[in-house]
């Protein structure tokens, strides 16, 4: 049996996020509670659960994720994804953040 042939052209996360409208709140609404916990964390679930590539861990760095908060879709997945409950998750300031046009 033949394997699935992709009929949909390749799409990058940048292409996808380009369709999303945001109002920049100017400061991050996301963070980590304790950077030491991230430094010791080897699984980095925050990076695999986030649909918007907000969380990245530099393999040559200190193990603490960098957070591209301005791409956040406010879905909440990283709140649950981190097994150490180490994600600091709040809402962007006064109406800032994602503005869905369709939903």
């Amino acid at each position, binding site marked *: 049996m033949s394997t699935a*042939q*992709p009929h949909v052209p390749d799409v990058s996360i940048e292409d996808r996020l380009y369709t*999303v409208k945001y109002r920049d709140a100017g400061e991050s609404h996301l963070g980590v509670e304790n950077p030491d916990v991230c430094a010791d964390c080897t699984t980095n679930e925050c990076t*695999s659960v986030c649909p918007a590539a907000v969380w990245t861990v530099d393999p040559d760095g200190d193990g603490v994720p960098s957070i591209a908060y301005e791409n956040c879709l406010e879905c909440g*997945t990283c*709140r649950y994804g981190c097994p150490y409950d180490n994600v600091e998750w709040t809402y962007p300031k006064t*109406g800032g953040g994602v503005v869905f046009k369709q939903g």
Partner: protein
Amino acid sequence: MSHEATTAGGLQRPDLQTETPNYDDAFDAVVVGAGLAGTAAALTMARDGLDVLMLERGPAPGTKNVFGGVLYTPTIRELVDIDDAPLERYIAEKRFSILSSDGDETAISMRPGAWRDDPHNDSYTVLRRRFDEWFAKQAVDAGVTLVTETTVTGLLRDGGAVVGVTTDRPDGEIHAPVVVLAEGANSLVSEGADLKERPERDAVAVSVKEVFKLDRDTIDDRFRLDGDAGAAYQYFGEGAVGEAVGGGFVYTNKRSVSVGVVYRVEDAAAGQTPEATLDAFESHPAVAPLIRGGRRIEYSAHVVPEGGARAMPDLVHDGAVVVGDAAGLVLNSGVHLEGTNMAVESGYHAGKAIAAALADDRSDAEALAAYTRDLDQSFVVENLRHYDWFQRTIAADRQFLFEDLPRALASAETEYFKMDRTSKDEHTGAARDHLVAAAGGWFGAAKRAWRFRRMLS
């Protein structure tokens, strides 16, 4: 009462720089969140003569909200005239499809004639941005004061009782007899105030969705639709969500198609990323032709509480009630994915209970308990209880349901309909063997049938 602040029919958008009008102690109830549950509660209370303030963190209702989705309207229709609502299409066809990762599809489709007749089985596709804003406007028209771009940051307490909210506005404390927590699945306020615990990771699903723009005729032709008829396709199996437990969906809007996947955060944490899962689903040979040539107009994501009845928190507290997704009221049974009807139903019962309690000048948990009782007797809690076993059962049977069964079905179909010079009888026997083998022999098949019998009961 500062009701002049609400221009008739208009949604209020206070200037961020100027001071907000003083809402402290001016209302009977404060509703946190202008989603479906919050608006239903606010509307119900306003109709019962209460002064209601509804606070929404987004720039307009709906700007933060994502769903599949099919809006189920049995309760909404009792509250408002949905003829004017921005509905996309009514559901004329439901189709359940099982996909293997080898490109196989086996589907069952239903188009009962009755669904073509008003009120179309109370099932319509909508886009939340437009629908939520419209629904909130009905509440404003009924007298509710809506303030957007205002995030509730915590609850005010007096002794143990909730007596109001704090917001991110200057002088943002607002005292009121009752607070309705309608903040959705990410219920920071309820959790922060210990009204509920944060759900465990294994009781939450992640979903990613894309909306593809296609012209109306293309959608009508591809999905065999006419007029306002629409289609709701649900997908299961490894070809839909890979190694995860969950499903995929394709819903038709008027001039766009919504496509997405919903599966356990647990599986995403184990390494199967939402983006890759969506990519694989969209490129499955059974799905790709449905969206071919469509322009992506929005990518979105949201969590879905899936804890069912067991994960429901206490719904009433002294001075506060919890409604909708914040209370975990979502049914995800595989066949059903419903939260909109439950959100509205819970908002309605909460609103009624609050009005009755305040008429007696009370707002303690005991006085508000009619909400819990009424919801308990409604379809909401009954359905959640009925399907509570489901999540656990499918998770335990994942390998069979998602990998072995889709392949076995495809092999059986191939065998059954095979054109060669062997007799039909022999093909039937071979087809049956494929299915029985996948189910673990006759005994295994009987055991599975027994385990899943409740799905259709």
